[in-house]
């Protein structure tokens, strides 16, 4: 049996199973830490930096989604500095591409949008990039709109870890990073795609959506993927 440890989160003492992340321990005890790239049931890349927390005695912020809770740890999930950091990370996501909620099929059902509301983002402090990005409509059932992609890699991971098709990956790096199907093929020509639609369901924004949806109509069910992962024995 795994060992039980005690962890302090925001001054409350909790008992947890060793090996669980700070994020999981917090969630087990009804505490929600902001996340975007993380999705229960998939591996955690720790890339969005929204879940950063303070750990007493550690001189830098740590991502809650990838940091295992340790016995005697004292974690702070909310402080002015953290709020500032999270807002900054979120603003950088917003300025990078073209997130125009009013014309988006996912308006009202978008994790990026709700995160902005949750963190109280009213405006951004940096100029928008306004990149010119393509929209891939080559797939018979789905659309990939790069303008709305935040490069969270959930689609890459679900396709690899749950579906096993490995259609997606992130190409290049830095500001030039782009989601690609196979060798940067139009999605509709990707022979490894099984058209299962799992990537669409886990995409937090309107970047991957079903065809035939009008503004505000696209709702997602990422719970399906988490449940599937749990059935297959993922540690959640």
């Amino acid at each position: 049996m795994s060992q039980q440890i005690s962890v302090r989160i925001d001054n409350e003492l909790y008992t947890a199973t060793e090996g669980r992340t700070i994020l999981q321990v917090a969630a087990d005890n009804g505490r929600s830490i902001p996340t975007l790239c993380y999705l229960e049931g998939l591996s955690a890349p720790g890339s969005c930096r929204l879940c950063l927390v303070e750990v007493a005695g550690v001189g830098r912020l740590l991502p809650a989604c990838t940091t295992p809770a340790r016995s005697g740890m004292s974690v702070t999930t909310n402080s002015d500095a953290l709020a500032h950091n999270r807002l900054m990370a979120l603003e950088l996501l917003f300025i990078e591409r073209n997130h125009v909620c009013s014309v988006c099929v996912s308006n009202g059902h978008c994790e990026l949008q709700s995160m902005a509301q949750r963190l109280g983002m009213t405006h951004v402090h940096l100029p928008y990039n306004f990149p010119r990005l393509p929209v891939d409509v080559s797939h018979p059932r789905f659309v990939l709109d790069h303008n709305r992609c935040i490069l969270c890699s959930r689609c890459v991971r679900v396709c690899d870890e749950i579906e096993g098709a490995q259609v997606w990956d992130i190409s290049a790096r830095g500001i030039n990073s782009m989601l690609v199907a196979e060798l940067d093929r139009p999605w509709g020509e990707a022979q490894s795609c099984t058209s299962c639609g799992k990537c669409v369901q886990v995409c937090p924004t309107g970047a991957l959506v079903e065809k035939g949806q009008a503004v505000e109509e696209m709702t997602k069910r990422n719970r399906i993927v988490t449940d599937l992962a749990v059935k297959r024995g993922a540690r959640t």
Partner: protein
Amino acid sequence: MPSPPLQLASGLDHEFVDNVLGKQQGRPGALLAILQQVQNHHPRKYLPLETLEYIGARTRIPLARIYSVATFFALFNLEPQGRNTISVCRGTACHTRGSRDLFVKLLMYYGFRTEGDAETDQLVVTTADGNMTLRTVACFGQCALAPVIEVNHAIFGHMNEPTLQRELDALAQQEPRI
């Protein structure tokens, strides 16, 4: 599902690729070594998409993964490279010492448009005749010699317009190298 075509782009040697694949099979980090050796073997020093597809079919490494690796490292080229290469450092030290102007001069000399393109920090362009590739580099690590330019593997520090022009003239004199 039809299997991907197993032919290589012209200029690539089937046997060579198979050989590399055989030697690297199963080694950790094999993909990097495979891509590097295959690219080096190509007369135009690049990785045609057909080759990547072939490597994917043979190794069972997902195509998206191969593409991701091939585009992550500046070392790999997906376009045919010129017979000559000039690399201009666009790092901070070289930028403050005028590397941008030198790069613009080169772009103009070889007939590329200079607006917009000269601003991007990562640029690789090859002349239509395949003679010259111009590329920007993030930093050569020779900042004390800024601005630094590399002409066919020879590094020039404290580069200025007259010296650059002399090198360009020398290149123009050369027999075209095949």
